[in-house]
């Protein structure tokens, strides 16, 4: 028999690499299998990396990691057909190291992150697809890859495949993800000279902006757009629920073109050259859609476990933390030489104690409410723009009259009962 590993990690994304790094540091024999040519090639992320979770693994990582800009401004744009209302938070605090978050390019970042695990002792095997699990007496004992002589054995397998994990599905942990629980995001990297980016977004060198957009850009569907500044490019993308996309009959790239042509967006990207185009799924089911996280000899981390906070557009940080906690669980299991699901339930406990489950639980009602109530993506951004216009326009009408007109508009747009219901739901969604 071939040499056996303590742990096989499937997927070299943030979840998989964090797990591997934690495992090898504890002296466990670990291999990571990645289907891409190298870590990062298959990864699409708009690209905001939050500092804290990674710092716990690699202190002062910012001194060596390939990062783009630290984010000093977070903007939310509510977009109507030809206007937008923005809320922006910008602060000096966000401009003081250690920074809260950075824009990154996954292709370079993941490769660097993987190299850290590799130099700590993990074996990283690229260009190899894990096709299935090897199961014996209901216990996962290894994986089968697409290569000749391709079986590998281990005490434990961590599934960090990302969204739509086939391994966990085949094991019966979750069914095919329902269409209303997954968004399809399309993204472009738009090249612009550094000076142009800094002038357009009012930034100094190394500073960056993150913008989230809601409203007309998603064409009535549940969806969010984003624009992040990199050093010499913008990451721009939009994601919508697959179920909505199907109903609307719209193609994702039509949506992206529409987004880019919006009169409030176009000036921001004027003259930019599209360098890269990609599409990827995002799990949006939230807390209620999280599958069982373990089976005998098997743990699931990151997107594969649906650990994405769609309210705050966070995913990589949940992936990093869950990968680390899965690895800690493996280390404990290894000490006791017990790899049953019961012993692995420690993982769920650790997650529950961390921000991962606490945040997801807080927003557990959000996905369902938003999916059923499209007014948050259609009616409200428009009403808001109309109201702002009404208040700003100087036309001799007293402001008090204007206020009444706005209120009437809201009621006309959504009915009084609808407003009350939406307000209640919104509280419930983010409560």
């Amino acid at each position, binding site marked *: 028999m*071939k040499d056996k590993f303590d742990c096989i990690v499937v997927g070299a994304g943030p979840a998989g690499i964090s797990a591997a790094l934690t495992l090898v540091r504890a002296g466990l024999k670990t291999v990571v299998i990645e289907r891409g040519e190298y870590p990062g090639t298959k990864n699409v992320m708009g690209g905001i990396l939050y500092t804290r979770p990674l710092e716990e693994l690699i202190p002062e990582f910012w001194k060596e990691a390939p990062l783009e800009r630290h984010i000093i401004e977070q903007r939310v744009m509510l977009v109507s057909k030809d206007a937008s209302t923005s809320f922006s938070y910008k602060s000096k605090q966000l401009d003081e190291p250690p920074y809260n978050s950075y824009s990154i390019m996954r292709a370079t970042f993941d490769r660097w992150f993987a190299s850290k695990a590799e130099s700590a002792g993990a*074996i*990283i*095997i*690229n260009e*190899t697809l894990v096709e299935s699990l090897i199961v014996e007496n209901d216990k996962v004992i290894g994986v089968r890859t*697409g*290569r*000749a*002589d391709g079986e590998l054995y281990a005490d434990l397998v961590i599934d960090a495949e990302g969204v739509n994990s086939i391994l966990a599905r085949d094991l019966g942990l979750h069914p095919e993800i329902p269409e209303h629980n997954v968004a399809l995001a399309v993204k472009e990297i738009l090249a612009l000279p550094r000076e142009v980016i800094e002038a357009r977004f009012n930034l100094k060198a190394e500073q960056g902006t993150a913008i989230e957009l809601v409203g007309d850009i998603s064409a009535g569907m549940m969806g969010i757009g984003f624009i992040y500044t990199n050093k010499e490019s913008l990451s721009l993308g939009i994601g919508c629920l697959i179920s909505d996309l199907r109903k609307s009959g719209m193609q994702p790239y039509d949506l992206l073109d529409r987004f880019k042509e919006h009169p409030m967006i176009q000036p921001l990207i004027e003259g930019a050259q599209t360098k890269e185009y990609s599409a990827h799924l995002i799990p949006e089911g939230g807390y209620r859609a999280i599958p069982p996280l373990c089976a005998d000899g098997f743990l699931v981390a990151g997107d594969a476990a649906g650990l994405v906070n769609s309210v705050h557009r966070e995913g990589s940080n949940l992936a990093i933390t869950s990968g680390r906690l899965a690895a800690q669980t493996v280390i404990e299991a290894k000490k006791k030489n017990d790899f049953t699901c019961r012993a692995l339930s420690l993982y769920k406990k650790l997650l529950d104690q961390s921000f991962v489950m606490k945040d997801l639980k807080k927003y557990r009602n959000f996905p369902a409410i938003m999916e059923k109530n499209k007014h948050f993506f259609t009616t409200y951004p428009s009403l808001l723009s109309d109201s702002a216009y009404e208040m700003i326009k100087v036309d001799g009408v007293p402001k008090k009259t204007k206020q009444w007109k706005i209120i009437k508009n809201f009621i006309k747009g959504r009915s009084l009962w609808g407003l009350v219901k939406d307000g209640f739901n919104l509280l419930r969604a983010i409560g």
Partner: protein
Amino acid sequence: MHIVVCIKQVPDSTQVKIDPVTNTLMRQGVPSIINPYDIFAIEEALRIKDKFGAKITAISMGPPQAKDALKKAVSLGIDEAVLLSDRAFAGADTLATSYCLACGIKALNKENPVDLVICGKQTVDGDTAQVGPGIAVRLGFSQLTYIEKIEKIDFERKEIFVYRHAEKGKQYLKSRLPAVITVLDGINELRYAPLPELFRAARYQVKAWDKKLIEIDENLCGMKGSPTAVKRVFAPTPRQRGEMVSFNERNPEETARALTEKLLINKNG
């Protein structure tokens, strides 16, 4: 049987930026790969190994990060990998590159006699197709370029039989070993290596040889040993497509008339 495969690490994209000041390649940020033409050389060596049994060594001259290309070669099934890397080797033109590689191969030859050196047809960045022949001359090996097919190798009699792509058709050649061959693209298709090869590559330490570790004259290496310098690098303007005059078999005079007419119009603008 010992086969040496020469591989060069090249920038992935054909859109490599060129430094406007120094006229040198700006490789920063461009992902590197094995020169695509050298992949055919690797697979051809693996096929010979499958048939006859052989040890295959990959060699490359380049900066330290060219180790990645060599590791990749090992993951494809290559046995050993050597990187010739030294500041003194940097900035080499084809002359100095061939010299340095020849010195490296001589060192390999001392350890384990080399029967065959396989190169790619050319590189996608330098594009000269001169390095293969340059190595052959310096080693005193036979030289077989633009090979379409290796028909037969007779190790007893030290002979190799190959089909060579020539300007006017195909040549069937017999030559003595040791030889340097450069292979055409498309002569084979790279295999999907079995998993254990990838593990071997992951654990493999590429040998790094600098000027002290091999017999080499520093003055013939790198910038010092390179009589060519790139004066200016620019994107050529694409050639305009030629105009066609169709040939009328029944009436050659008519064709001639149409042709002269076109020529006269062009000449007079």
